[in-house]
């Protein structure tokens, strides 16, 4: 070994020296790049410490809109005679321009009163095996890159409730953001998803009902 750069004959200490050099230089460059980007604009770079993306809950938003610490009061009802509106008895959902997290109680209310268009973001077989009654299947993989389909989606003047089946339902959160980007409003994300719904022993619908049916 007489050339520092070698061409595949390196072994032992020289080999591991190279491995460490690649890892250390790569790590340095990565941190350096981020530091440079952050020096230009903090938002463009990554924070040094990661924080998991979180959605604001409906309760938080309602509380804020009702003036800080005041307990949430029932939101105004929508005209029951408006066929496209939200049925009476379902609190109106504020339009905040980003997905809102909802809990199982609210989901049950929306399902019972048909107060939202429900999207199941899981794959077709999972959907067919059992889903929240009335839910439309829009598999995440199929629709996430299909902007036209998301834009064409008819929310019938109602809020859209998205859920899936993962441990934390990140797909539904992502689909929620995609729907907002596609111009949809009042997007709700049920992070508990199918596992929680099943655990609550709430009604489940089976079969592959196509979208829009």
């Amino acid at each position, binding site marked *: *070994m007489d050339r520092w*750069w*070698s*061409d*595949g*004959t*390196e*072994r032992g200490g020289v*080999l*591991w*020296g*190279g*491995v460490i*050099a*690649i*890892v250390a*230089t*790569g*790590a340095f*460059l*990565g*941190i350096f*790049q*981020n530091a440079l980007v952050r020096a230009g604009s903090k938002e463009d*770079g*990554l*924070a*040094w*410490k*990661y*924080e*998991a*993306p979180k959605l604001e809950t409906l309760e938080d938003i309602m509380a804020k809109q009702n003036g800080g610490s005041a307990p949430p009061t029932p939101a105004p009802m929508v005209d029951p005679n408006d066929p496209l509106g939200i049925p009476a008895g379902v609190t109106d959902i504020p339009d905040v321009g980003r997905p809102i997290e909802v809990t199982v109680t609210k989901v049950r209310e929306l399902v019972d009163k048909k107060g939202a268009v429900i999207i199941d973001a*899981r*794959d077709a077989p999972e959907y067919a095996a059992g889903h929240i009654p009335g839910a439309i299947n829009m598999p*995440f*993989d199929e629709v*996430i*890159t299909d902007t036209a389909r998301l834009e064409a989606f008819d929310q019938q003047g109602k809020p859209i409730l998205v859920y*899936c*089946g*993962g*441990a*934390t339902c*990140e*797909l539904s959160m992502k689909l929620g953001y995609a729907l907002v980007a596609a111009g949809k409003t009042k997007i709700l994300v049920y992070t508990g998803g199918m596992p929680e719904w099943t655990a609550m022993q709430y009604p489940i619908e089976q079969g592959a009902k196509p979208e829009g049916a």
Partner: protein
Amino acid sequence: MSALAFLRHPTVRRVAQLGAGVIFIAAALPKIADLASFAGSIHNFHMEPVIPVAVVNLLAMTIPWIELLAGLALISNVKPRAGAVVYTGLMVVFTVAVVIALARGLSFECGCFGKAGAATLGTKKLLENLGMLALGVVASTERRA
């Protein structure tokens, strides 16, 4: 020629190194361009018990550059064996992460090749990873001076 001898053949090794190098460079560039999505992808694996959530961003900024350098080493034939060892090591880590995620029933895009290659985790992804891992092993074989 035995199978082992074939895998240690200089031309086979060089082809494996070039293939592995192209894979890593192709994987690194989109991630470097969009670190935030990659950080989200890492978080999706939910490796909290092993990797604290706080370091997810540090991993997201460093891994793509390490991939890029390893890929360049493999392609340029400058320390290709070191590049191949880094490649193989990372592939082992990625594959283990995919296996654990699948075993836990997690379903999300892996972000393996940045956002564009939004493959959702599944058996196909696992087989793909095993193939890329095998490529790394062949690329790592020693060249006799």
